[in-house]
């Protein structure tokens, strides 16, 4: 057992230094993991069927929750924005208000949070179980790169499916806003969609697109990293899954603010 030689008065500083070094090390490992994954992504051959499987795992299986949350988010937005705008007699701007809220902010963020909860957690758990049952080690000793087989296809699939999921979320949300604003509260359909065409620019759509692409990278990167570096046993997998979802969600919100403020 090693005994600390640091005087008691300096122990807090010693601890702080230890945590800082560990923190920097973790960040380094985190970055190196993405570097390894990007290296595997750009080095042929791409594991095509693994990529297709990941699209199904991350994208297709998240479709139902995206459809539901997209529609109800749009309906809530339609209701609340209509009630607010009606105080100023500006109900005509319901369409652009719903569309801009969804396309610029809520679509990418909520779709990413939903996919994190459904697919990101499952990705961490799957890789974590593969790690503790030595399946990842088995790949390594077969001289086959786990990065190429397990991580690169997931990140590729994230880049492809997150914008698609976001687009579906946005469309369903705009339709939900239409249902409430037009069908329930009596706004004219021409006003709802006409004003939307006037106020929504390509730049708004591009912002939402790039946000969703970056969220696709963040979620798959964080969740795969946590699965790869899982602790021991079922408890380790559970902890890694929780950490992956929490860290992904926080990073989504932080990155959303950052990219939104510099765009």
């Amino acid at each position, binding site marked *: *057992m*090693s005994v600390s030689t640091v005087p008691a008065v300096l122990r807090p500083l010693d601890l702080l230094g230890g945590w800082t070094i560990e923190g920097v090390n973790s960040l380094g490992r985190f970055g190196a993991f993405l570097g390894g994954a990007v290296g595997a992504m750009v080095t042929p051959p791409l594991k095509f069927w693994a990529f297709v499987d990941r699209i199904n795992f991350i994208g297709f299986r998240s479709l139902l929750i995206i459809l539901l949350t997209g529609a109800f988010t749009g309906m809530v937005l339609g209701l609340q924005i209509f009630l607010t705008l009606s105080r100023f007699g500006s109900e005509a701007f319901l369409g652009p208000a719903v569309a801009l809220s969804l396309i610029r902010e809520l679509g990418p963020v909520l779709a990413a949070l939903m996919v994190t909860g459904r697919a990101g957690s499952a990705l961490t758990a799957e890789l974590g179980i593969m790690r503790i049952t*030595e399946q990842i080690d*088995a790949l*390594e*000793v*077969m001289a086959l790169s786990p990065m190429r087989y397990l991580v690169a296809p997931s990140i590729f699939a994230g880049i492809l499916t997150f914008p698609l999921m976001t687009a579906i979320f946005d469309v369903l949300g705009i339709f939900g806003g239409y249902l409430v604003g037009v069908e329930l509260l009596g706004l004219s359909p021409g006003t709802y969609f006409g004003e939307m065409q006037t106020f929504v620019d390509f730049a708004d759509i591009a912002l939402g697109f790039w946000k969703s692409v970056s969220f696709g990278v963040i979620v798959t990167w964080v969740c795969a990293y946590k699965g790869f570096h899982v602790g021991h046993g079922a408890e380790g997998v559970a902890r890694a899954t929780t950490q992956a979802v929490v860290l992904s969600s926080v990073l989504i919100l932080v990155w959303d603010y950052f990219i939104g403020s510099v765009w």
Partner: protein
Amino acid sequence: MIKVEGLTKRFGSQLVLRGLDLEIPTGSITVIIGRSGGGKSVFLRHLIGLLQPDAGRVLVDDQEITRLSGEPLDAIRRRYGVVFQGGALFDSMRCADNVAFPLREKVRLPKAEIAKRVDSALAQVGLEGMGQKYPAEVSGGMRKRVAIARALVTEPEIVFFDEPTTGLDPVLVNTIHHLILDLHRRHRFTAVMVSHEIPEIFEIADRVAMLHDGRIVEVGPPAQLQASQNRIVQKFIRGEPEGT
């Protein structure tokens, strides 16, 4: 030949390997015995390049693998087959696909040839017709045999077995040991096995190495260890508790 020199590994404050030295002759079955938690699996993971030591080195045919990574390490690993403690079968694949996996990914053979080799590998371990089952659908003993078939299907020069009989009943332990012996006679690979199945492993081992307290305390043919005057070896072989 695999040569291990001064292998030292520490996890936090715990020193697991303390300057371990060992030579593993080509074509032999060398069994590493020792108490549970004594560092046998850690030692094996150094041999297959999954862990890097704090000091010391591992040489495979005079090539040091300890500091290798990437393609040079993969080149060594292509000569390896590994049977993990739990089998480490890919649970999303059927047993036949597990066995076919290294052939599909590493060897690039026609589909018909892969199917033929997989059938032959499964037949060698007594699992004809079981290939379409998933690992979760077969017994623990069968999973171990599928893992052995997967490790041997690429005809490796060196095969590592990490406690291949843990958790099996005595009949299955003997079945797996004799299967390994039979496969070794046919393929003449170098086998390195971690086990604590005493006295069963004395029947199949060419050499036995006793790992204790992070070092090899005795190594030699089974008869040598059985007749050893070393108290640690004797106590382990007789299954005497600590402190007696």
